[in-house]
């Protein structure tokens, strides 16, 4: 069963990454994305060789618990499929931005149409990445149900969480409990702006980030590379999350994660920069080759320096070097934004003047209060935050069970705060509409971190239980 789920998840992930990467490349050269691309990618993904190992189960799982878990996941999946297919997007951004692009690409899967080519045609978030609209459009053209992509992404994220536990030797009861806990997180499955079937790209981004996090724990190169490509090409924020994962892996000296993330980041970001440029300028300006070369040089340098520090046993220097690199990065950011060739773009809007953070530091308490309010008081994320804190306490001396995930989560916090400090939007309204969706992005990372830590420590604390991992689980 675990093998089949792994096969299906890895196949879908590879297919989505391959189809959208090739699809975006075809869009960039002005071609028409062929209808056979997605089915071919699915076929290749499903037959691509894969070898994974699962822990041996030494005890029986509670059969009724497994039946209940299966039923719960089935009911939620059915509700999400119904919500996704019964109507087009029923929430603001889903309808006005994402659906519009998806319907245009479903009609003509090319950028050679006035919506994308003519700068005077009203087009919301013109330079946003096209992965989600393209995936929805290709699915619509092939199978007639494009929006099925949304619940499928949710199922892939839930599957990744379950496989992460199972491949680390967790018992089936713990796997089931972990999957249900993550899958039913209120903000993810409620019919609200940003949830799975809302049409927004936030839940899709969260799904790819979940798979990337599970890949980091399992050291699964395919999962990390594919999901990082998808992360970068789904939303502008994806570029930041990929950079943060690179930073976290570098700080923790996780070489396998660093290299896989570096590969995914380079592929995704090169396509993203070229696509953003094409959408914004349509051949009216030189593509951002300087920015692309800088990006490849910086990422390549990170990989090389990581190996050098490791060989010389200079790991204590990582934090200092990262600090220096961070300060240099902030200083050259305005120039880098110009070099990216899209200074009026959606991401550049937040990056062109990083010193605004210092000038508006008096707004920070309001942002932090909103962060705590959204994460703790409304019940949107259940008890995820207390669990992350407990897991961090538990894992404080461990370099195993996803220590790069803990660093990744910590690095997200200043970035989330900076978003609100550098923005010109009215703060209260911006916090209300944006903060819950930013938190949603990291929900899968948080749950993979919690469950990986829990599973590792339970196994250490109860070695006599073999692969049984939850101290609270029924026997």
């Amino acid at each position, binding site marked *: 069963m675990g093998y089949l789920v792994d096969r299906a998840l890895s196949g879908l992930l590879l297919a989505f990454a391959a189809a959208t990467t090739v699809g975006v490349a075809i869009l960039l050269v002005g071609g028409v994305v062929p209808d056979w691309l997605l089915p071919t990618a699915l076929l290749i993904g499903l037959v691509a060789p894969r070898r994974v190992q699962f822990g041996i189960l030494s005890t029986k799982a509670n059969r009724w618990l497994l039946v209940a878990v299966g039923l*719960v996941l089935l*009911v*939620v999946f059915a*509700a999400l499929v*119904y*919500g996704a297919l*019964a*109507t087009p997007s*029923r929430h*603001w951004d889903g*309808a*006005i*931005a994402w*659906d*519009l692009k998806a*319907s*245009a690409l479903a009609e003509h899967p090319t950028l050679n149409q*006035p*919506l994308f080519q*003519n700068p*005077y*045609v*009203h087009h*919301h978030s013109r330079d946003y990445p096209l992965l989600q609209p393209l995936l929805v459009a290709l699915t619509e053209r092939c199978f007639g149900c494009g929006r099925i992509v949304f619940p499928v992404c949710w199922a892939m994220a839930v599957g990744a969480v379950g496989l992460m536990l199972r491949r680390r030797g967790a018992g089936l009861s713990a796997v089931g*409990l*972990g999957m*249900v*806990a993550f*899958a*039913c*997180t*209120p903000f993810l*499955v*409620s*019919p609200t702006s940003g949830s799975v*079937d809302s049409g927004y790209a936030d839940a899709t981004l969260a799904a790819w980030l979940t798979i990337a996090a599970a890949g980091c724990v399992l050291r699964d190169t395919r999962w990390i590379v594919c999901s990082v490509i998808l992360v970068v090409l789904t939303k502008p924020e994806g570029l930041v999350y990929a950079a943060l994962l690179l930073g976290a892996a570098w700080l923790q000296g996780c070489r396998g994660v660093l290299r896989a993330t570096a590969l995914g980041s380079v592929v995704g970001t090169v396509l993203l920069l070229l696509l953003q440029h094409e959408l914004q300028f349509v051949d009216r300006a030189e593509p951002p080759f300087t920015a692309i070369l800088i990006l490849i040089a910086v990422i390549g340098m990170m990989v090389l320096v990581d190996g050098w520090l490791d060989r010389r046993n200079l790991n204590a220097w990582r934090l200092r070097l990262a600090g220096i690199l961070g300060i240099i990065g902030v200083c050259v950011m305005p120039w880098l934004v110009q070099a990216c060739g899209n200074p009026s773009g959606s991401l550049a809007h937040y990056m062109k003047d990083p010193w605004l953070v210092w000038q508006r530091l008096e707004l920070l308490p309001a942002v932090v209060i909103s962060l705590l309010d959204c994460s703790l008081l409304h*019940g949107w994320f*259940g*008890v*995820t935050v*207390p*669990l992350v804190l*407990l*897991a961090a*306490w*538990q894992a*404080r*001396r461990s370099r195993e069970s996803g220590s790069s995930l803990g660093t990744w989560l910590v690095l997200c916090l200043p970035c989330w705060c900076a978003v609100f400090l550098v923005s010109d939007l009215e703060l209260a309204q911006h916090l209300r509409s944006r903060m819950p969706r930013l938190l949603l992005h990291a929900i899968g990372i948080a749950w993979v971190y*919690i*469950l990986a*830590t*829990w599973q590792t*420590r*339970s196994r*250490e*604390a*109860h070695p006599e239980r073999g692969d049984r991992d*939850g*101290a*609270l689980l029924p026997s």
Partner: protein
Amino acid sequence: MTVNSPLDAGRTSLPSVTRWIGLLVLVHAIWGVARIPGKVVMRRVGDVRDYQQEGAAHYFFSKARLVGADAIAWLRENTPEQSVVLFDGPHLGAMEFPPALLAPRLFVSIRHCDPASESFAGRPIARGEIGGLRGTVVVHADRGSLRIEVQ
């Protein structure tokens, strides 16, 4: 490491923290499952029913407290799909909806296209008749409302 070192203290506390994590995972899962019938299923069914009964324009405009759902309906009935509709006013707010709800029609500001023009980007500019007056259809928008005029 001595018996009384902090590391030892940490080790002895491991199972209890693990137990707390397990308990909270269970609480989170029960919380999530308890919300399924009302918040996940029935509220979703209600939203879908409202959308289908009211139609997309009325659904969005009433939820967002905007005025102009009738303008969307008028445009759908009176302008060809493969046309360009001109608008006047800010492109944020109420004007964000017409391109999505009336696709594949394209929307262009009158700042970028003369209403007297016959076509834009290879498509005809939408013309219509309101109150006996015939001319180019222009959607007048402000942040909270839409209305149609012919010029």
